[in-house]
């Protein structure tokens, strides 16, 4: 219980399989109160599935095992009612495609009021006033006039603001933002990120920010988990991971980002693609794409262990601290074949 007091949510050994295909291979993850945690990885690495599973939002054909604790209370395997009490009120979630995440046949005001009456018992005028306040808070201009409009009458960025307003309606302790800016224009992305940062500062709610955009993660988060093929491969503070990425995959993600400072350089892509969860490679899942892989990596899978600097790392041959970027170029050539 002493850990429960410091951590809001604790995931232990969370596994998910779809039709017998394992896509999540035991995730251990803590989210502290008020903390902003980033979850990074390529599409299909299981970052969204982790949180959909934690909230019981996966379709029935998914089999979920492991433990999901909210302030010590076990959710996993519990009846539907347990999840219904947690969703929205304790843990809210917003999604990647805001325009199709709002119900197209219900007025946006009604959708927010629905959440208010559900979690805070507000009805009628007080509910409307509170909904308008939330709309103002997330930056919907002219909210009073647009209260009775439908989702298709808003832009994608505004729909995401509406989703955030709806999430705030339950005054959650944790907001899971599942790639909230992926479907949006760059300028709108920045606005939504600013909004998330500002709201966290104002409300003190913890945020889990799921993204493949390292830049966005570094703006919003304090701590980052890098996921690959259904496992966490590196975890540490934003400063640690950004200054010294140790896992070759994390390193690869950084090398694939264009830099605006320094000389113009070719971006270094990570060769190959994310492995099919049906046919994961032997040993470390990343070894076929890894520029540092040795024989041991093909035989055994490295466990996630805490290093001396406090970060967690799952790699037999991590990138040495402060290694310059050049040496790996010559290796990538033949790996691309």
């Amino acid at each position, binding site marked *: 219980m002493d850990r429960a007091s410091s951590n809001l949510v604790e995931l232990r050994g969370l596994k998910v399989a779809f039709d017998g295909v394992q896509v999540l291979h035991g995730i251990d993850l803590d989210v502290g109160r008020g903390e902003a945690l980033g979850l990074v990885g390529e599409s299909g690495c299981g970052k969204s599935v982790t949180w*959909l599973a934690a*909230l019981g*939002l996966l*379709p*029935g054909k998914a089999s979920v095992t492991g433990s999901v604790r909210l302030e010590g209370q076990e959710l996993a395997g519990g009846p*539907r009612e347990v999840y*219904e*009490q*947690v*969703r*929205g*009120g304790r843990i*809210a*979630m917003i*999604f990647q*495609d805001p325009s*199709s*995440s*709002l*119900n*197209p*046949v*219900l007025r946006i005001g009604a959708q927010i009021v*629905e*959440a208010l009456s*559900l*979690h805070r018992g507000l009805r009628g005028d007080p509910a409307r006033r509170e909904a308008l306040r939330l709309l103002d808070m997330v930056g919907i201009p002219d909210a009073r006039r647009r209260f009775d409009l*439908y989702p*298709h*009458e808003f832009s994608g960025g505004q729909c995401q603001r509406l*989703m955030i307003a*709806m999430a705030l309606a*339950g005054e959650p302790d944790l907001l899971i933002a599942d790639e909230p800016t992926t479907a949006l224009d760059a300028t709108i992305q920045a606005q939504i990120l600013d909004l998330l940062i500002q709201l966290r500062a104002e409300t003190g709610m913890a945020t889990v920010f799921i993204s493949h955009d390292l830049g966005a993660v570094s703006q919003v988060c304090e701590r980052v988990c890098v996921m690959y093929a259904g496992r966490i491969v590196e975890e540490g503070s934003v400063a640690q991971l950004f200054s010294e990425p140790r896992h070759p995959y994390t390193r690869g993600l950084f090398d694939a980002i264009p830099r605006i400072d320094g000389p113009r350089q070719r971006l270094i892509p990570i060769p190959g693609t994310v492995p099919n969860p049906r046919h994961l490679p032997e040993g470390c899942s990343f070894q076929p794409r890894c520029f540092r892989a040795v024989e041991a990596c093909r035989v055994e899978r490295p466990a996630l262990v805490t290093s001396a600097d406090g970060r967690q790392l799952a790699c037999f041959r991590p990138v040495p601290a402060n290694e310059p970027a050049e040496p790996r170029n010559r290796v990538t050539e033949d790996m691309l074949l």
Partner: protein
Amino acid sequence: MIRFIAVRILRAMITIFAVVTFAFVVLRMSGDPAQVMLGPDVPQEAVDAFRRSWGLDQPLWIQYLAYIKSIFSGDFGVSMRDKASALDLVLQRVPATLQLTLPALLLKLALGIPAGVYAALHRQSFADRGVILLAVLGFTIPSFVMGLLLVLIFAVTLGVLPSGGQDTWVHGILPTVTMSIGGIGILARFSRSAMIEVMGQPYIRTASAKGLKWHDVVWNHALPNAAVPIVTIVGFMVGSLIAGAVVVESIFSWPGIGRLLIVSVSNRDLAVVQCILLNIAATMVVSNLVVDLLYGWLDPRLRSNAAH
């Protein structure tokens, strides 16, 4: 909105006009009423007199113009057989037909939609497979086979229900059930696929993530979205309230529009057949119009499309 309705009404009028014209031409090309009414051994003078008195000796286009003109003045012609107003003959039969088709429609709605929705929400379950199986059986067995089968079981073998006639409400049970089985199957299948489609949408996940009870997710968020495709099918069923009973009325000797149509066609009773077809077309067109308006009411996105 007014423009939207006006356009739809105009289109409806054109449809009815096309049906009327088509029926007029085809009926006159498919046989001579004088021959049918008077029989084969009647002298030529009698046939000519009959044709003259009904205006059948005129060129087709003059007959047609006269017919259209009389329709617009509310005159739907006179039955060649009964010498009575065709419209009156048809309207007399409407209540009998509705006695079958309305309860059948209610049965389709009350059983088909819930069965489909339940199956969708319990996908791959035993109940789901059962619903699919029954639905396919329901709408693949033609109503004349189904009708005879039910007569065989309930009237002949068990002897619990009458096999024909219109004396009491009990006589209506078999024809109503026969007529509704196919529709229940169709509605169940459509409701099921509509619900499955909707339940996979991101906004349903949002509704769950919001903390809504499962029941509220289904009722408040899923069903209103699944309504559009379901309403389309229901609209079609409402449109065939008048015409949908031809086969079943014949099997069960039910004195409705369907039987009148069959008798009138075989007698080449032109005015009556045309009046029935006009009625059928009008019902179908009106129900389509109502469905179009319902679309806008159910789905705001269609509303704004219509406005542009």
